[in-house]
């Protein structure tokens, strides 16, 4: 079992927290919280089997957030001294005082049990930062070489990001915790260049809350995927262009996770529904007046929010407001029944939500940023005895099976979206008959989820996800997992992207 990194435990976290929280209290703050965060990140990039870039970063700092005279104040600093902790607390109070005249709403927080000096560590086997760089590069060079040796592969690019996050949190209510999480995000892409066109094929291995063992085969079969990519790429390069129109789609979880992220994950963030994100990422069509009645999708649609799933990128023991991880329903039998909230939104919307408690969706991407309402692991649940992907394909007369994610875009209220993918297989009379190219699917969220006729069984379920979801001002980057099975959708609009380009 991993342990919290000793060098983080050696930092004067208790002393700094005590000094900051006491100073905030002395200055009249009615609530204060302190975070000490160390985020180690490593980025390794290879181009054509040659190491192009390897960079090892560490971000270490402290932050104080206060409620003073009913107004938030936030400040952050980097020096790990008691003087700096006090200065940051004073600056946070000062920010609250400066902001008070333009704050029209008194800040109140939902109650949460107190957790006294607890520890939580995510599930992984090998801390990536204990693996020698040379061993990592050797493995990635081997993976690159396998692709480069194949006919038709002109170039190979590799990028692997690893993150090791340690956090100490304390607030004036008495909660304090130490938390450690590890995550990893690999991408290997083969490029082909033909006389009149070029194309690429990337691995579908999603980023995961795992350690370096992920790169050597735990949780993903690299040998199998790398062996097949050159053939898939050659077939795609020679594939016929798609005829635009309406098709039935079987969407693989390697693609569907991203559609869930954009059209459900962000749409069920209560801060968006309430307008707090309106100037940046946007609002949501899933407004509070539709809570409990909005027909989000077909009756087979069951979506959960989850901060507890093993290997989830958004999985935590406690969030950045000291709230313990939980699981709850967002969409049940196709109806909107839940939101993702933080403590302020939970308190303000207690009657609507029917619970006095936050579901633990506050997160800041570093000590330099304020905690905001952030996405839990939002997942589409499989049917307990549901069909296999092949069975879903067998139900399609004229359709497309879509594998892997690529391009994505959705409007600022989460209605109109357009996605592409890595591979598109034409389905005729229940059978795959070869790849297509130039495919994008475009739909409106409720139409799309309403057209979902069936979800696959647990045997088709996969955790997808992203390391780099952007939100808020100043912009913050979040990591989040989305589990889902394969699923069957009827009559979805397919575009030909070459025609869209006017060619």
């Amino acid at each position, binding site marked *: 079992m991993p342990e919290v990194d000793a060098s983080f435990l050696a930092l004067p976290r208790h002393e700094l927290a005590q000094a900051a929280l006491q100073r905030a209290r002395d200055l009249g703050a009615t609530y204060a919280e302190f975070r000490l965060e160390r985020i180690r990140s490593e980025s390794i990039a290879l181009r054509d089997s040659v190491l192009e870039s390897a960079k090892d970063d560490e971000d270490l700092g402290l932050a104080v957030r206060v409620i003073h005279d009913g107004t938030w104040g936030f400040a952050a600093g980097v020096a790990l001294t008691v003087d700096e902790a006090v200065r940051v607390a004073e600056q946070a109070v000062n920010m609250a005082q400066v902001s008070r005249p333009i704050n029209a709403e008194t800040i109140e927080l939902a109650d949460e049990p107190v957790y006294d000096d607890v520890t939580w560590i995510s599930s992984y086997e090998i801390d990536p930062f204990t693996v020698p760089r040379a061993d990592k590069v050797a493995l990635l060079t081997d993976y690159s070489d396998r692709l480069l040796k194949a006919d038709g592969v002109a170039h190979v690019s590799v990028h692997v990001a690893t993150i090791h996050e340690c956090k100490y949190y304390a607030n004036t209510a008495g909660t304090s915790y130490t938390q450690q999480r590890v995550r990893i995000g690999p991408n290997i892409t083969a490029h082909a260049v033909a006389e009149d066109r070029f194309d690429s094929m990337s691995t579908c291995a999603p980023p995961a809350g795992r350690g370096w063992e992920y790169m050597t085969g735990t949780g993903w079969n690299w040998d199998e995927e790398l062996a097949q990519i050159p053939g898939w790429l050659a077939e795609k390069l020679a594939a016929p262009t798609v005829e635009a129109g309406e098709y039935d789609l079987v969407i693989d979880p390697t693609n569907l996770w991203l559609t869930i992220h954009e059209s459900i994950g962000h749409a069920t963030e209560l801060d968006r529904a309430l307008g707090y994100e309106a100037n*940046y990422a946007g609002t949501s069509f899933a407004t509070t007046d539709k809570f409990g009645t909005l027909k989000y999708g077909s009756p087979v649609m069951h979506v959960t929010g989850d901060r507890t799933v093993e290997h989830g990128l958004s999985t935590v023991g406690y969030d950045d407001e000291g709230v313990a991880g939980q699981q709850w329903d967002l969409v049940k039998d196709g109806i909107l029944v839940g939101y993702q909230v933080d403590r302020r939104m939970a308190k303000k919307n207690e009657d609507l939500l029917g619970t006095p408690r936050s579901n633990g969706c506050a997160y800041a991407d570093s000590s330099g940023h304020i905690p905001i309402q952030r996405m839990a692991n939002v997942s589409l649940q499989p049917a307990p005895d549901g069909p296999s992907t092949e069975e879903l394909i067998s139900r399609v007369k004229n359709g497309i099976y879509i594998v892997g994610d690529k391009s994505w875009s959705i409007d600022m209220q989460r209605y109109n979206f357009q996605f592409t993918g890595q591979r598109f297989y034409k389905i005729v009379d229940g059978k795959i008959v070869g790849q297509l190219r130039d495919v994008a699917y475009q739909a409106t969220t409720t139409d799309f989820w309403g057209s979902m006729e069936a979800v696959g069984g647990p045997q088709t379920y996969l955790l997808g996800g992203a390391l780099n979801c952007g939100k808020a001002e100043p912009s913050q980057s979040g990591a989040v997992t989305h589990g889902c099975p394969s699923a069957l959708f009827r009559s979805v609009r397919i575009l030909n992207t070459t025609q869209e380009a006017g060619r």
Partner: protein
Amino acid sequence: MTIQLTPQDTIERGLALAAAEGADGCVVLVAETSSTNLRWANNTLTTNGAMRGSSVTVIATVGSGEGTAAGVIGRSSVTEDSLREIVSAAIATARAAGPAEDARPLVDGPVGADWDLEPEETTVGVYEKFAPSLGESLKRADLERRRLYGFANHEVVTLYVGSSTGLRLRQALPRGYVSSTGKNADLSHSAWVGTATRDFTDVDALALDAELTRRLGWATRTVSVDAGRHPTILPPAAVADLMTYLYWQLDGRDAFDGQTVFSKSGGGTRLGDTLSSQPVNMHSDPALAGLEAFAFAVARSSGGSSSVFDNGLTLQATDWIRGGKLEHLMTSRHTAELIGVPEATPDIANYVVSVDGGAGSTDDLVAGLDNGLLVTCLWYIRMVDPQTLLLTGLTRDGVYLVEGGEVTGAVNNFRFNESPVDLLARFTAAGATVPSYSREWGDYFSRTATPPLLVPDFNMSSVSQAS
């Protein structure tokens, strides 16, 4: 010891430690940042912050027999003790790495005249004039049953670069911006304005609110327009939304490897090709007045258009596109040699798009359009096809109908599928180039100047219900 070092001390001690531990070369980058922000929604302040950051990057180089290898380690909150660890780690990393393909002699040069100066800092005081007028506009919006949502940010980055070859450079760059969205009482319509600034002395929150109010007034009449190819006026902000993506695709190595719109069919780059028959230009210059950028190359990792060995390289004014012809791609010294161009042209953190003879404003283009759309900003722009640089995205917070040279109403939103490279060849009218602020990318890349453009057949692929 936990002694905090000045940036200059960090660099001198880092270089000395690297030399003592046997590095053949070393570059140390120190970035001191300070920022302060205000965020509001539903006519009230929601969050605020004041942050101070410090990062140190040590790039150690060692000879490896077959070439030179580099090790890169970055840290925040560096102390005298941790600096020693960072330098040791960078050297160990370099020794464990193979020769770097992009290895070149480290850049040498002078000690800058301002080298000894302390980092510059911003404070919440930068909003001394802006905050009260923001407060007034929030109250006014409340009274007039409008809602305001927005964000103001100001930051100063002071960058220090020192190398074992004697280079000592320092530059402080301030940057600020405001982005503000207004909605009518029932939230059925919205409008947006945004602007970049260096110090907020030139930002008038009440004037921004007046422009939002004017645009919301256009929504008194609403018109449904179907998807299709429409004559469309893109104001400078919307042009920046699209051209910033084009700018990021100017990577010379990726083009050479056959992976971008700037790759030639069958191999090589499209350098020298005519992209547009129109006299359109894209130009960068770190000294552009009002859009000042770092005057030297800064690279914390190597990539297709950048190299850690090029840190400190003086950036020259560069024409990327001139008279419609692709003149340069972004290159490191290594990539320049690889693709056969005489000198490196690294990326620069600003650009200007202009059209020779372009004159007048967005309003002037509107006055000249009989029937079409005015699209104030674009959103969620992503690449669909790298071969054509086909982008998809949405209109948001302000699409208007233009009839008989006037804005006559607000129109529903659309999803578009378009290539900015194609747009540069298809526009039929252009205004004068002015400082612009991209809705989508401005918080990251705000030093842009662009003209308004009229595109006769902008591809609105479908209608978006979002409002």
